[in-house]
């Protein structure tokens, strides 16, 4: 909650003892988080081509051209996919590498048979644009929020923070009072 806004009567809402407790509780959480994160980075890996058999690699690298839009040879159930799968098996059997088999099919049926364009040349524009724009927009948003925040620090905004409902009496703990206040305020202000 925003203790600052409630003026001098309650300058600090968390007693020092509580602050220590909170930090004590959070410290192991942070340590565990870092440890788990570290373990994750060391051991985890996204599912990669290495998990697939050469046959599956080729099948997932080619789209079926039967008209079942968007399905790879691996997933498509039509007759065309069947014959492509057979040809892949033959080519792999005769010693071609998965990459060679894929290229052979692309040469015959065109770039359209790739599930996604390769990350090179003009196609890079396709891959990079969404991320670049997202980063750019994100950066601008951060700058904008900072700008609005400096405006928000002007006295007008502080005056507008309003009064919370009167705090209920004794049996509530500090934490409960905070929660109650927030819930009540949000009920009032329509979140």
């Amino acid at each position: 909650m925003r203790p600052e806004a409630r003026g001098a009567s309650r300058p600090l809402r968390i007693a020092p003892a509580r602050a220590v407790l909170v930090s004590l509780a959070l410290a192991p959480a942070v340590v565990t988080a870092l440890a788990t994160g570290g373990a994750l980075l060391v051991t985890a890996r996204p599912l990669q081509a290495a998990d697939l058999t050469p046959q599956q690699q080729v099948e997932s690298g080619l789209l079926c051209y039967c008209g079942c839009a968007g399905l790879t040879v691996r997933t498509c159930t039509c007759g065309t996919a069947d014959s492509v799968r057979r040809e892949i098996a033959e080519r792999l059997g005769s010693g071609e590498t998965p990459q060679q088999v894929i290229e052979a099919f692309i040469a015959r049926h065109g770039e359209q048979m790739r599930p996604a364009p390769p990350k090179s040349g003009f196609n890079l524009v396709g891959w990079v644009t969404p991320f670049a724009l997202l980063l750019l927009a994100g950066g601008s948003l951060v700058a904008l929020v900072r700008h609005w925040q400096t405006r928000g620090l002007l006295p007008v905004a502080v005056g507008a923070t309003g009064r919370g409902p009167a705090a209920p009496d004794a049996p509530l703990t500090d934490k409960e009072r905070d929660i109650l206040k927030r819930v009540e305020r949000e009920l009032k202000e329509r979140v």
Partner: protein
Amino acid sequence: MADFGTLCLFIALATSGWAVIASFNGWRARSGELILSAERAVYATWGLVFLVVVSLEYCLFTDQLDLEYVASYSNRALPMPYKFSALWAGQAGSILFWLFILLTYATIVVLLNRRRNRPLMPLVVTTLSVVSTFFLVLVNFMARPFLRLAFTPVDGNGMNPQLQNPFMAIHPPCLYTGYVGLTVPFAFAMAALATGQLGETWFRTTRRFTILSWFVLGTGILLGGWWAYVELGWGGYWAWDPVENASLIPWLTATAFLHSVMIEERKKMLRVWNLSLVIMSFLLSILGTFITRSGVISSVHSFTKSEIGPVFAGFLGFSVLVSVGLLLYRLPDLKSDNRLDSFVSRESTFLFNNLLLVGAAFAVLWGTLFPILSEAVRGVKITVGAPFFNQVAVPIALGLVTLAGICPVIAWRRASPRKLLEKIQISFWALIGTAAALLVAGVRDLYAIVAFSLAVFVITTTALEFYWGTRARQKVTGQSAGGAFLSLVDRNKRRYGGFVVHLGFMLIVIGVTGSMAFKQEATATLQRGESFSLGRFTMRFEEVENRDTPNYEFLGARLAILDGGRQVGTLEPGQNFYKAGQDPSTEVDIRSTLREDLYLILTGFDPQAGVYTFKAYLNPLINWIWIGGAVLILGSWFAMLPDLRDRKREAEARLREMELHAA
């Protein structure tokens, strides 16, 4: 009946055109007579188009095969429910159906606002009628449902067998209701911009329409996924097909609007942004229809290709010009005093939520349209498919999930970081615990671990919000836990409905992650008595199963499913051979549990040799997607329920605006 339908369509074009002229001139001349006449013209148009729909249904049910539409999308043996749904199986019919939904919305809007929002209504009617007139031009002159053939065929082509599925019968109406619903907030936004009455009325009035169309569109998307899963026979539910993308994009911008409008309600900020989101959602829904109906990008739905593309593009361009022009014209009036108290506040999490949602919408749109750009620049046709979209969408989705976990507990205006940490402490532990447990259990997929842990984080945060809220109310009112809970959620349906929607979204995240990261597959060619296995299941080919129905012949196989040596059931995958002569359709069979789906496909067979080829998928947790969808629907309904508090607020807002005008 066909001639009657044609006639009604023609008169409807006239009444709809009249509604445009009368309401616009009525607004300019302040003529109550003209305005009233325009509103009556809306009712009349609805009635006429209703008669057209009835006529087309009649022609379908009575097999009037001399009509091109009936002969193309139906046949004598087609079961009754599918004769009904043939209305939206083809282009002309679906545009007609779209038009009918639009007019239904328009009629409801006019009825509900007979005595309210009078200053806005004439231009709302104008906007809605311009859109309906456009669609009426299409069905009158370009995509004509009652076009006659020069001869009468013996039987029709029948419906595409893949569309003969109950989900496919509901999926398009849902999508259309969602798409078209976005026209209502757009119409109010246009009216607000044109009249300069840019207060709260326009979005308060349309909020419920927006939630309704948002959730119906979402339901439509989910049903489409379900349909693809049970019908298309490739073991998945989402292929990033251009038509699927086209439905997702406006849904994403509408989601952004539903969040950012809360900032406008509270702080009167982001007015231009919210108007832009409403305009964007409408334009994207028209673009979606354009992509679906014009065949501009070839896709699985290409059976609806036609020549209406340029007309659609023209209408889209016109809408962009008018709406953006109006927005720019009103820009000086829309200046709001944007200020934020703190970076750590709910306002700013909403802003970043909007960034991600609109970013996702852009990325999906970009990927969908990039093949056209590539062809124009390089002259090479390429495909942008799942690998691209997954790479872009997964990080954005994870970002959104994280925000959904923090947003509900962060305070408006200014949150103290310490309090925030205190509040997410338990959820944070839940997150770490989940990640650690998954690691110990041997899960090594980075995305899966992150996604599952974040989902647990959000679920814990949300559940605690319910718990703390209930506890706090219990202390105040002295009610029982149940009573306190009910009064809590009842007092703020929108907030808690929204939380339930978040919970549904998390279940979907869990289902999608499980079925993407841990999917297994196996293929085998078997003779009777032989078996193959996948995961802990063994499938034994027991018997050939053939059945004959009036519509199709089913050729399939029965397999016993063994789980660790014990038989747990049988599955009967097969293929339907339709008598109307289309390609056979794959009929998968699924053993569905909360833990996983065993998905069995008969991919090919040689009855003479007795050799059958099967493909099996093990899709873990996939059912949570559909369960999450149901939760999402429940939450949306709850959020839409009328709220006394809301009515009061609306009345107050209207009073304020009236005072403003008086002054």
